[in-house]
């Protein structure tokens, strides 16, 4: 397609190359340097979008981040991204974009029929309409939610790559316009580390008149020269295409950088990068957004902000129209008119609402029709279809064809023909980042703008600070950079850049909504959310006074553009209706993010397996090679079962558990928390931590212990062994390792610093595996220990340090399976060798690995509790049947709390064993326990498993006064899974209650 609206010359585009792209299924061409918006303008495309609520035809209205209308979907399938501003999408080969919020097409959108009923959908429509009947709300909600929103996000996983980067700098400057560049040059002159971020494709910001001289150079050359100088400084980092979207506490700024037009997962290059920059000083040079002046039908395609039209015409040589009418309330409209004329657009009339606007403002303009004291009251449009065509009114006009203007105070209108209608309503400083920490902008009545609040570490410059002419921007930028450096104790010798002297601006008019007169047609204030002056008037009549309430009632400023173009006009209108100033009305709260941030950028590379760290044991690779099935226990990957070919999971668990009872099994227990305790006061420390006594633990012996929380509830259990006179080795459960370490460190540092005891975490130092079963001693012996293994030499609950197969080990005679058992600890780097050796030399004994499932079966058979299952944070020692462990000869943490009446009540939940009355029936997982008659819960099942050695299902549970209810029949109910079984309460120890096998 020919670029019918591309000027023959000018613009910062590379005309030597063509870029082909698609929009709404049609092929177009543009040039490097274009955005999607500028390329579409150059191709004469005016209709890009449909509005959010009424599906009205919309075109490009603004430039860059301010655009409220032209939201498009880019890409296909999983890589598609909705709600992107066409004004911010760099054109690249193969770009495919389409309009959204329309069906079947943007030209013929059936949703536009809703416009016929627009009078029925005023502000607050939802609140008023869907209140009755109350019972129908769930239905209403479904319909409303389906209709809400703009684009549609893809359902497939995003194939693109996103990065996070952290950076630390002395001074961060947000905004790469002339103010930001001046600030960066000043700050960098101090030698401090400086970062400069700008959301645009090129540096220089919004200044378009590049013929002005700065330091004797044309502005564009000064900008290029400044960027080159900054880029050459090693302490300066330049971040182009980077939007600072949030300001957090302690000088942290969130920045979203567009890395490349196309992501490239193969090369590792990300599509977007989310920077978290920690800066000691921040300079905001974020510029200002132009306001629009509202009038009837002001949303027709072809109606734009004057500055945006000037930008497209000058920077991209893309002409949004041929004949323009410009409606202004301030001097900047004349500057825009001058730029438009220079680019080849005829300005047929300037409508200035100021009756006393100086004729000198029009000096040098070719336009000789200046209407002072006039306002545009209505836009006129070309209809999509003939007036008689069905639905033509609803489908609306495709483009502006003229407007009606009226002298203020009169109702006589004059008609002007044009294909481009521009408004220049003054400028609103972009103060958002300055307000993210709670500061409120300050109203400046002289300029009728809200200015940013500053802070000790925050400086503002340029248009953001209310400076709107070039020289003032340069000066304020330089001063902000200088002040930021001075705040860090640095002085600079450089002189501020010198710009052209400017004439004092004439006062602007406060008019942001033209008088309606007899004109009819909707008068839009916020384009993105379809809020009109009528909506605001209704809110005001209904007594909404706070701007925050008006915002929520009408949705003013609630779009993704955060009301950048609409809110100032809305606030001005509310002020006019209230007889107040905008300063009295105030602004709504600016919250992060300033601009939309993709979910991908928020997640970064923390997706899938990279979403959270996982830990593996020293034996992990062996387990993997052996075909183990893994489970996550906290962060640990643990071998759950070792299924053989053709074996089901249940068969594998049964085989592994049975083998422990009948021969010998070996399992990885490296995940246990391990600590080395040193010092002469370790026994005293253990006395205070554990419920039982430790003073008489001899060297070479181990002991089981339970720790309590301060409130008396069971915290954790494990063993501690005395390796030598002043060295102890403690194990904790896997899940509580970090908690117990913190607990002990806190006690030693704060509670008992006088104790001569140190705690060193050695969980990572030791790989560990348990050997259990009647043949465990035989297996230990074939590993060629250099220590005696007989029952007398190495009795139950003892420890030996020595070597197995030449590998240094700590061997503990401990069993969690209720069998003759050992736990073997070898240095982590040697653990696999020893494990492999044990399986090799123990093959004739029938040794086989078993996983956590079989381990669970074995411990349930023995009635051993596990923190998190039976000890659930509400369980005391006595509840678990271990009350006799509590030593009365000394005190320990949590002991005093046990005296509380509630913890000694007879009807507390006690640990019990559970079997089904029909032994063939499995126990329902997580079932509640109730009497058959009442169905009132009296406890619950905490653990259950099939016991291959017993031949039926067994379980552990907590039951009210359970110790005295052995033999009672109850019902186990799990309504969530639809299961119910009669069960019998039994002793929790199902297997070898005398413990003879452990002591063998």
């Amino acid at each position: 397609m020919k670029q019918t609206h591309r000027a023959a010359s000018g613009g910062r585009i590379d005309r030597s190359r063509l870029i082909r792209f698609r929009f709404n299924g049609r092929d177009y061409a543009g040039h490097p340097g274009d955005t999607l918006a500028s390329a579409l303008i150059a191709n004469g495309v005016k209709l890009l979008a449909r509005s959010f609520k009424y599906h009205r035809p919309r075109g490009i209205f603004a430039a860059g981040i301010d655009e409220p209308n032209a939201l498009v979907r880019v890409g296909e399938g999983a890589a598609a991204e909705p709600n992107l501003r066409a004004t911010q999408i760099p054109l690249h080969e193969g770009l495919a974009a389409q309009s959204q919020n329309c069906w079947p097409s943007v030209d013929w959108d059936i949703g536009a029929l809703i416009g016929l009923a627009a009078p029925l959908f005023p502000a607050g429509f939802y609140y008023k309409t869907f209140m009755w009947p109350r019972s129908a709300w769930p239905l209403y909600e479904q319909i409303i939610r389906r209709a809400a929103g703009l684009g549609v996000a893809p359902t497939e996983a995003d194939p693109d790559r996103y990065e996070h980067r952290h950076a630390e700098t002395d001074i961060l400057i947000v905004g790469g316009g002339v103010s930001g560049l001046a600030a960066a040059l000043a700050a960098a002159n101090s030698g401090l580390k400086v970062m400069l971020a700008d959301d645009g494709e090129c540096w220089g910001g919004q200044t378009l008149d590049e013929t002005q001289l700065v330091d004797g150079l044309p502005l564009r050359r000064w900008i290029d020269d400044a960027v080159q100088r900054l880029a050459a400084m090693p302490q300066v980092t330049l971040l182009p295409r980077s939007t600072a979207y949030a300001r957090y506490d302690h000088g942290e700024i969130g920045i979203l950088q567009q890395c490349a037009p196309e992501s490239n997962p193969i090369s590792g290059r990300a599509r977007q990068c989310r920077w978290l920059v920690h800066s000691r000083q921040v300079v905001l040079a974020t510029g200002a957004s132009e306001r629009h002046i509202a009038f009837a039908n002001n949303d027709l395609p072809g109606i734009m902000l004057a500055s945006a039209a000037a930008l497209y015409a000058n920077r991209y040589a893309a002409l949004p129209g041929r004949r323009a009418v410009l409606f202004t309330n301030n001097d900047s409209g004349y500057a825009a008119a001058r730029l438009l004329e220079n680019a080849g657009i005829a300005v047929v009339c300037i409508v200035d609402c100021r009756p006393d606007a100086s004729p000198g403002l029009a000096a040098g303009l070719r336009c000789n029709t200046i209407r002072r004291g006039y306002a545009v009251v209505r836009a006129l449009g070309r209809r999509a279809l003939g007036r008689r065509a069905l639905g033509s009114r609803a489908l609306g006009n495709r483009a502006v064809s003229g407007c009606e203007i009226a002298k203020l105070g009169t109702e006589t209108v004059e008609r002007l023909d044009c294909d481009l209608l521009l408004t220049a309503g003054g400028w609103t400083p972009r103060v958002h980042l300055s307000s993210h920490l709670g500061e409120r902008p300050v109203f400046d009545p002289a300029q009728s703008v809200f200015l940013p609040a500053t802070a000790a570490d925050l400086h503002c410059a340029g248009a953001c600070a209310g400076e709107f002419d070039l020289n003032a921007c340069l000066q304020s930028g330089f001063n902000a950079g200088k002040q930021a450096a001075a705040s860090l104790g640095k002085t600079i010798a450089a002189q501020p850049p010198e710009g052209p002297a400017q004439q004092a601006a004439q006062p602007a008019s406060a008019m942001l909504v033209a008088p309606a007169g007899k004109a009819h047609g909707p008068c839009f204030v916020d384009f993105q959310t379809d809020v009109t002056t009528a909506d605001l008037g209704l809110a005001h009549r209904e007594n909404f006074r706070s701007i925050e309430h008006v915002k929520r009632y009408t949705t003013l400023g609630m779009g993704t553009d955060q009301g950048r173009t609409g809110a100032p006009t809305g606030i001005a209108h509310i002020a006019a209706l209230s007889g107040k100033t905008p300063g009295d009305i105030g602004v709504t709260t600016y919250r992060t993010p300033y601009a939309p941030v993709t979910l991908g950028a928020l997640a970064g590379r923390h997706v899938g397996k990279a979403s959270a760290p996982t830990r593996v044991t020293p034996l992990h690779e062996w387990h993997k090679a052996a075909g183990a099935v893994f489970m996550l226990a906290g962060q640990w990957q643990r071998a759950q079962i070792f299924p053989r070919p053709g074996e089901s999971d249940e068969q594998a668990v049964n085989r592994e558990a049975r083998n422990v009872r009948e021969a010998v099994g070996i399992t990885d227990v490296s995940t246990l928390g391990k600590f080395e305790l040193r010092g002469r006061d370790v026994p005293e420390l253990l006395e205070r931590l554990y419920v039982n006594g430790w003073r008489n633990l001899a060297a070479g012996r181990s002991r089981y212990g339970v720790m309590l929380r301060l409130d008396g509830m069971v915290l954790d259990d494990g063993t501690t062994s005395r390796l030598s006179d002043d060295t102890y080795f403690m194990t904790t459960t896997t899940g509580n390792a970090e908690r117990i370490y913190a607990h002990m460190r806190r006690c030693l540092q704060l509670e008992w610093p006088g104790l001569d005891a140190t705690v060193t975490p050695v969980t990572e130092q030791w790989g560990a595996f348990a050997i259990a079963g009647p043949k465990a001693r035989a297996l230990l012996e074939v590993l060629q220990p250099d220590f005696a293994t007989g029952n007398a030499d190495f009795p139950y609950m003892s420890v030996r340090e020595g070597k197995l197969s030449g590998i240094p080990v700590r061997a503990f005679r401990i069993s969690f399976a209720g069998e003759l058992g050992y736990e073997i600890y070898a240095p982590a780097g040697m653990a696999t060798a020893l494990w492999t050796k044990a399986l090799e030399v123990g093959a004739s004994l029938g040794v086989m690995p078993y996983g956590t499932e079989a381990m669970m079966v074995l411990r349930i058979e023995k009635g051993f509790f596990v923190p998190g299952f039976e000890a659930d944070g509400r369980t005391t020692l006595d509840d678990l049947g271990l009350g006799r462990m509590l030593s009365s000869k000394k005190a320990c943490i949590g002991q005093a709390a046990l005296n509380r009446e509630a913890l000694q009540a007879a009807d507390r939940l006690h640990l019990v064993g559970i079997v089904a009355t029909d032994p063939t029936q499995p126990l329902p997982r997580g079932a509640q326990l109730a009497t058959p008659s009442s169905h009132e819960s009296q406890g619950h099942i905490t653990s259950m498993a099939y016991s291959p050695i017993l031949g039926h299902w067994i379980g552990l549970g907590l039951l009210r006064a359970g110790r005295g209810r052995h033999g009672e029949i109850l019902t186990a109910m799990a309504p969530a899974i639809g299961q119910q079984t009669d069960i019998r309460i039994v002793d929790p120890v199902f297997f070898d209650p005398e413990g003879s096998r452990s002591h063998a």
Partner: protein
Amino acid sequence: MPDHSSMEACSLREAAMAQLLLLQLPAVNASDAAALHSYAEAGLCLRLAPDQWLLLAETEPFAALPASGRAKLTDISHAWIRLRISGPKRWEMLSKCMALPHPLGPAPYAVRTLCVGVPVILLETSETEALYLLMPRSYSAWLTQWLADAAAEYAAPSLETAP
């Protein structure tokens, strides 16, 4: 049993360690002095906590050291995996996973920090264009893979497990 305050207990332990190792131990506040000191030209000594130090050496020069008062030595040589990260883009790559200024300080220098949620020690020695990441053994497989992926866009830096 003496009734020490927490700081007194730390001082006692520090004095015992200094006596044991015959050196001035790293200061508690790393901003006041380098956090890392050479130890007898055989290794490095890094303060992990007010009363904890990590001694690093290629060989095992600490094994023969006797306990001295409250100073206790525990071998944790299998607990950490050391990753050498080299190349001009090493800091750029690390900025993807940790919030640290660089350079850390006058080398040798070390900090304890989190790297993608994993507790690590970052060590900058006198070696140019390289630094070391000490990570707990159990996390090393996951973290090394994460870092390798982070480094994918660069020809450098290179990652190699150091002895």
